[in-house]
């Protein structure tokens, strides 16, 4: 059974490109523009990786991280200039600076997709 990657970004365009790019890992990609909906999904599904934007109008990436129902690899994504600061935050597995290299993101995502 294929594994799932969850992407959260308030901007539909970013969700679209993440879906197109991460599909190439072979995983199922679920994207959410509403963080609440993403959290609800995580409540009932096992996922291999979360890629989440930091700046969103209703909830920040850190809010999402805090509310995760269970620990999961979490890539914080942002277009902010100080994005590297997030790499020190507990629970953040890695950071993705926008604009990102699609090839590298695929490689990194593959690293979290186990054999199972």
């Amino acid at each position, binding site marked *: 059974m294929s594994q799932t990657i969850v992407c959260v970004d308030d901007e539909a*365009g970013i969700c*679209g490109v993440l879906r*197109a*790019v991460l599909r190439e890992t072979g995983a199922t990609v679920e994207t959410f523009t509403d963080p609440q909906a993403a959290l609800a999904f995580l409540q009932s599904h096992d996922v291999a990786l979360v890629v989440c934007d930091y700046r969103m*109008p209703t909830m920040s990436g850190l809010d999402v991280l805090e509310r995760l129902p269970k620990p999961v690899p979490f890539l914080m994504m942002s277009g902010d*200039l100080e994005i590297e600061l997030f790499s020190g935050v507990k629970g953040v597995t890695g950071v993705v600076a926008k604009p990102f*290299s699609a090839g590298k993101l695929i490689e990194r995502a593959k690293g979290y997709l186990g054999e199972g």
Partner: protein
Amino acid sequence: MSYFAPLSPEAARQLLGEVVKSFPFATAVLDREMRYLAYNRSWLSSHGIPEDRAIVGLRHYDVSPEIRDEWRQVHQRCLAGATERRDDDVYEQVNGRRVHHRWVVAPWRESDGAVGGIIIYVENITDQVETTRNLAEREGLIRTLFEQCPIGLNLCRMDGLWIESNPAFLEIIGYSREEADGGLTYWQLTPRKYDAAEAVQLESLKTTRRYGPYDKEFVRKDGRLVPVRLNGFIVEHDGMPCIWSLIEDLTEQRALETRVEEERLKAIHASRLAVVGEMAAGVAHELNNPLAIISGYAFTLRSAIARGDEAEIKEALAAIDEATERAGTIVKGLRKFSRQKLGHAPTDLVATSSLVADAVNLCRSRLLGTGVRIESDVRTTAQIVGNGLELSQVFVNLLNNALDAVAAAENKWVRIVAKEGQGPSSVTIAVEDSGPRIPPDVADQIFRPFFTTKTVGEGTGLGLSISRSIIEGHGGTLTLDADAPCTRFVVHLQKAP
């Protein structure tokens, strides 16, 4: 032949007494033994002798034993036939007061030509001397003041001919005293362009006998124009009305004003750069999203092309198009904001609605992830004549301040409201926020340059002072509304006609 009937000695003595009494200054007639024959009231008072004391027949030295030796010697010389006089004889009284006397001592002679005694006239001229000296001193003081005064002083006839000029004035116009006093006139040094203004000042002289403050220029001897401020009034001089003028050289003041204006424009630009810097982070975020979309789809396009998946290729290309256009819009907005337009006369026609919309859009990137609500409410279609760039800077600045102020508030909102002003030709734009109120003691200071409540590195402290300077430069006002229930900055601007 004798003109006079012979007088008895008694009658002669009486007549002598009457004549002496009529003299306006202290007079005494004495015989060879220095005994009084006649004297008058001033003599008594000037010698400290009681008025009711009769001293005829008494010796002068017995009545006034304090008489100085030098006087006694004068008396002796005159009794020997000399006549002595002194026009200003000064001596210092015991109390230190200097007393001035004019006196004459002369012998009088018997019918046989022998000296019968002396006549002494003494006039106390202390008051006259002091008055003359005071006048001279005052005259000297006024002369010194005239010569040393750093303000130009000039006396001229009503027809403009110069009568007297002080060195400060000569320096302003660059002529020598000989040249200025040698027939130079006011009109020779006044450019023709001031004709109308001169007429106004002349009218003022006629009706109020004063003129000024009147700012004009003089043509210096070297041809240069020198800016001056004149004030003056009419005085009588040699029986005719003349004009005293005070002339200030405004060259340095004008240079200073220019420098201050240059500094103001520089500060406005510096503040604009600071605001641009603050926005850069937000703009980076805005730009990085479309860039991420473009680069991501560019990557997936390769495999989609390899697969020949036409639908996916179309989707990717459409997304790239859209993202590129969005990035372009952001860059355009930024360029509009930072373009140099320093010191341009405010002549753009700016719609209030676009002013508000631009400012809100430029700040929108800062809102993401902060939970701040921003509302704009435009209830006017008015346009404003001004520099659109500078005006946008003001409202971006006010909105940025508001966003900073609400960061820690529980209920976070920022509102910008534009509506018709109270007058028929004004527009009011208010920026309100739910942040903590500005304490009254701080309210007085917030418009001062370099005042800031933000931590070091976060604010330049120039925003509000520059903003106010920009709005005032447009003939408007920027104030803090102390009566509002929330923090509220109000801008009043004139509508375009």
